[in-house]
Structure formats: structure tokens, C-alpha cells
């Protein structure tokens, strides 16, 4: 679905473009902006000039009158974290690339493309609108969108992504790039999601538009990080991930490859993470199946607690 709506008929207003998390700004009254919903665009697709979604985004920018001397707010990356990261991380772990290395690599590639985008379009600034908190509980999955992992674990992964991104666009970096997010408003201290922020389990509701505009506005106007809750940075949180074998029930074809591959989490009942430091450990002990892929489980736990047996 493609939607372009203007809250103000002024070519110089910021263009908010990307995935469905742009839609809340259709209702914006306090933030003059133009909104373009591309569809389920990923950061990965944005970085690939010939991808259908990137070409569509470029077309929508032309339809919006271009972005020279305008601020562009890019809402992309949620699907990367929810689907691609979860799929790719275990495979890359087994080949010696740690979780932070992987996320850092992705973020660097993403920002490199954003800088090229600024140079080529003449945009005055790009603000990255961060992904929201995750669905509650286990998400449904299929072989096209293997969105897996528990609510807390997926939020932790979003946090790792946020930390990489925030470090890269921190004050003093000199980029015309900012980062704004409602994520930390949407989660509890234990990184589970506050359902009042995502009543349909996916989107920030329209009645939160004022909060979103207030969060986005400073970043549009030059503040590198606008994350709320008095945060001037995203605190570093090392997440311990251990990999344990997981029996995949069946596989019928290559397309079934990810269908029954669940990254399960086993955590303590009362894990508290915010403000506590954990040591990151990655364990690449992974079982390979006949497709050369991983069947495994993930465990997130404080470093002070012993691992549960697989």
C-alpha cells in the first residue's frame, strides 16, 4: 500500500517515508510534514539500489517533489531486526561473527547508504525513526517472514541495534543524521513491551501522535539523539546469548527451511536488565542439519546465573 498525505502543503516540510510506522504521522497537527508509506521496506532493501522497495522509495520521493534542502525521516529497520537478524545471526555466530559484530556491520552499511542518499538527493538532514517495541509473546511466523523469538529477546535485539546506531550518530560525529525513537517509552524495565503502546500488537496508535511528534521534532531540528526518558545516549547493554540445540520437527523442502526454525528463549522469571551490566558471550556450539543450517535455541540470562541444561 502506498499513501502520500500532506499535513501541510509546503514543499519544504520534512518528508516522513518508509514502513507502516510512518502512518501515525498522518494525524500530525503539531509537526508540519509530508508522509509517504512505501510498504514493508527493510534497511537492507534501502541499501540495495536495485531492490524493488528502494526503487519504489526513490519514485515516491520524486512524486513528493524531491527532498533537496529538506529533512527526510526514514522509518526502516524494524523488519530487519524482527526477521533477517534473527534468521542470520545464528548462522553467522557459527562462522565466528558475534552478535555485536553482525549488528555493527549492518548499521555501518545502513549509515553509509544514508550518507550517500544525503549527498545524492541534497537532503539537508536524515532522521532515522527507530523501530517500535515488539509484539507481545511469540510472533506468528511463516517461511516468508520467520519472525521468531520471544517478546523480551526481540526487544533486547532492538536495543543492541539502537545502541549501535546511537553511538554512530552521537553528538560530535558531524553527520547530518539524527536518531529518534519511542522504543524506551514502550518497554518495561525487564524489556517486555507495554501493550498500551501497541494495542494492535504492531503499530503505535494514532492517539499517540502528539508524543511521537514531540519526540521526532528535536531530531528534525538538529538534535542527534531524541530517545526520551532523559536519555542522552543508549546505554550499553551486553546481552549474553548461549546457543543450544533445538530439534526442528520436520523440513520438507528448501522453502520450509526456516518455517520450523524457532529461536526459543529460556529466561529467569524475574530478570531485570536496565541499569545492570551483563557480559556478552556467544557460544558457537551449533548443530548442523542436512541443509547445513542451524537448529538452535537462545538463552538470555544474567551472567551471574548459571545456564540451564539444554
Amino acid at each position, binding site marked *: 500500500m502506498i499513501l502520500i498525505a500532506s499535513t501541510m502543503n509546503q514543499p519544504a516540510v520534512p518528508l516522513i517515508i518508509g514502513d507502516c510506522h510512518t502512518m501515525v504521522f498522518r494525524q500530525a497537527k503539531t509537526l508540519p510534514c509530508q508522509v509517504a508509506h512505501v510498504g514493508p521496506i527493510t534497511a537492507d532493501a534501502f541499501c540495495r539500489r536495485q531492490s*524493488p522497495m528502494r526503487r519504489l522509495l526513490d519514485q515516491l520521493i520524486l512524486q513528493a517533489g524531491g527532498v533537496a534542502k529538506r529533512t527526510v525521516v526514514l522509518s526502516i529497520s524494524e523488519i530487519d531486526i524482527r526477521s533477517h537478524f534473527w534468521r542470520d545471526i545464528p*548462522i*553467522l555466530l557459527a*562462522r565466528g*561473527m558475534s552478535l555485536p559484530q553482525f549488528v555493527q*556491520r549492518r548499521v555501518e552499511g545502513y549509515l553509509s547508504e544514508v550518507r550517500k542518499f544525503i549527498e545524492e538527493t541534497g537532503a539537508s538532514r536524515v532522521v532515522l525513526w527507530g523501530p517500535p517495541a515488539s509484539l507481545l509473546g511469540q510472533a506468528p511466523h511463516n517461511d516468508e517472514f520467520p519472525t521468531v523469538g520471544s517478546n523480551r529477546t526481540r526487544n533486547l535485539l532492538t536495543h543492541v541495534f539502537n545502541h549501535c546506531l546511537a553511538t554512530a550518530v552521537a553528538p560530535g560525529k558531524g553527520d547530518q543524521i539524527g536518531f529518534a525513537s519511542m522504543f524506551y517509552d514502550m518497554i518495561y524495565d525487564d524489556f517486555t513491551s507495554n501493550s498500551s503502546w501497541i494495542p494492535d500488537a504492531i503499530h503505535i496508535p494514532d492517539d499517540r501522535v502528539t508524543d511521537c511528534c514531540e519526540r521526532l521534532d528535536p531530531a528534525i531540528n538538529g538534535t542527534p539523539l531524541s530517545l526520551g526518558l532523559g536519555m542522552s545516549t543508549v546505554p550499553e547493554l551486553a546481552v549474553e546469548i548461549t546457543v543450544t540445540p533445538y530439534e526442528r520437527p520436520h523440513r520438507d523442502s528448501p*522453502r520450509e527451511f526456516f518455517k520450523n526454525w524457532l529461536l526459543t528463549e529460556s529466561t529467569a522469571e524475574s530478570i531485570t536488565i536496565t541499569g545492570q551490566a551483563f557480559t556478552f558471550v556467544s557460544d558457537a556450539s551449533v548443530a548442523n542439519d542436512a541443509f547445513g543450517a542451524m537448529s538452535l535455541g537462545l538463552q538470555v540470562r544474567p551472567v551471574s546465573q548459571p545456564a540451564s541444561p539444554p
Partner: protein
Amino acid sequence: MNNNENAGSHLAAIRRAVGDVLGKPAECYGTADGLDQTDGWDSLAQMTILLAVEKNLGIEFTADELLEVRSIQAMLNAVSLRTDDIPPGNEAQ
């Protein structure tokens, strides 16, 4: 088997893997095929294809290769680094 024959068999194995994942005969695919260039070869199929190629060839791509290799030609080039084969399309190198 000489180097060119090895490269030919590697290409055949790669095309077979791509065909298995994308659901078409291997003959439909050539060195120009790749992510965003070929119907059905999207970012979600990408990793599946690479892992299927690994299985067919009995190799393991490195982490960097898994993140960067996005076409049949690139896969051939990566495999040739392991075997000193000259992959089709790279004969001038």
C-alpha cells in the same frame, strides 16, 4: 578433472541449489542471476540459497561471504578462491 571442468561442475551445483530454492529448473539460472535481479530471489531467499549451495558443494562460506555474496557469479568467484578454478565469466583474470 581440470580447472575449467571443476568450475563447470561448481556452476552446475550452484544452479541446482538456486533452482531448488526458487522452484525452477537449474537451467533457468546463469551467472547473471542474483539478488534483486531474478524473480523470487529476494533477501529472504538469499540466505537459503547460500546454505543450499554450501550443501551442494560441501563447503562453508565465511561470515563475510554470507553477507556479501549476492549472485551466482559472486558465488563462483568465492568458490574459485578455494580451488584456484577460473569461474566462467572471469576467464580474462
